[in-house]
């Protein structure tokens, strides 16, 4: 059999931003896209998120009332939340069919939840 001919590698010229590996977050183009307050916005995001995560930590192990759609309310013990805000994990979920030792509640189904500190 004949040897396969290697495919030539096409090297593209460097982009205008100098860093040809992709979009540079510090490039003038990206700053213009984000808006002048990119750094401040990121600082705000970090501070808000940190407080939110501490709030989740405070909720762990506490009896929580979940307000679901169509006026449904359920009580459970708060377990954990995931990074992408897809679901909540709870313990001792009280349902009309009995108490579920562990369960997942979809974030899309939950309108609000509350607990006491």
């Amino acid at each position, binding site marked *: 059999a004949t040897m396969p001919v290697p495919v030539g590698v096409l090297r593209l010229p460097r982009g205008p931003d100098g860093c040809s590996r992709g979009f540079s977050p510090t490039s003038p183009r990206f700053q213009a896209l984000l808006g002048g307050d990119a750094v401040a916005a990121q600082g705000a995001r970090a501070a808000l*998120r940190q407080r939110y995560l501490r709030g989740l930590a405070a909720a762990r192990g506490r009896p929580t009332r979940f307000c679901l759609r169509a006026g449904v309310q359920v009580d459970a013990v708060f377990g954990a939340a995931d990074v992408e805000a897809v679901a909540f994990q709870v313990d001792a979920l009280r349902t009309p069919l009995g108490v579920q030792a562990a369960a997942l509640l979809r974030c899309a189904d939950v309108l609000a939840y*509350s607990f006491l500190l």
Partner: protein
Amino acid sequence: MNDWQRKSPLDWETYVNKMVKVAAIEKHEYEGWVLTVDPISASVVLATFLENEKVSISVVLGHAIQDVEVLKEGDDEMKQRLSCIFAPEESKAYSPEEEEKRKNALKTWLETNHIPVTEQGESGRTLCVAGVLTIDPPYGPEECSSSNEIILSRVQGLIQGYLEKQQ
């Protein structure tokens, strides 16, 4: 995605420490002091102070929020009170000298075990391990922070063992 979820973090930040009324879908309404707005889900975290010294925390999920109306601004005293609600617990208070001693002892021990560690933050009170994990005073396993779970649990175990040997 609704209008509330489309706001910028700087916008959401303006609601913190204010008393608001959140109108949610299905005609639900929630009132309380805004502790924070989660930038990922745009969920609003509200605090309500009850008569018996207890605080009720309500989280309204971003996807359910129709409108947020500011009712009043919090004064400095309220801001202080709100910032304490989720503040990390102050465990045994160490004096600045004791804290410094603990920090140096731990730093030396880590270096002896060939673990790269630097000091950072204002006044250098925070230790930074291998650039990916930080340790705040008083330098116990609970004060370790990292986005890498494996490194976090390893270092917590090391510190736990180190502290037990100290006893």
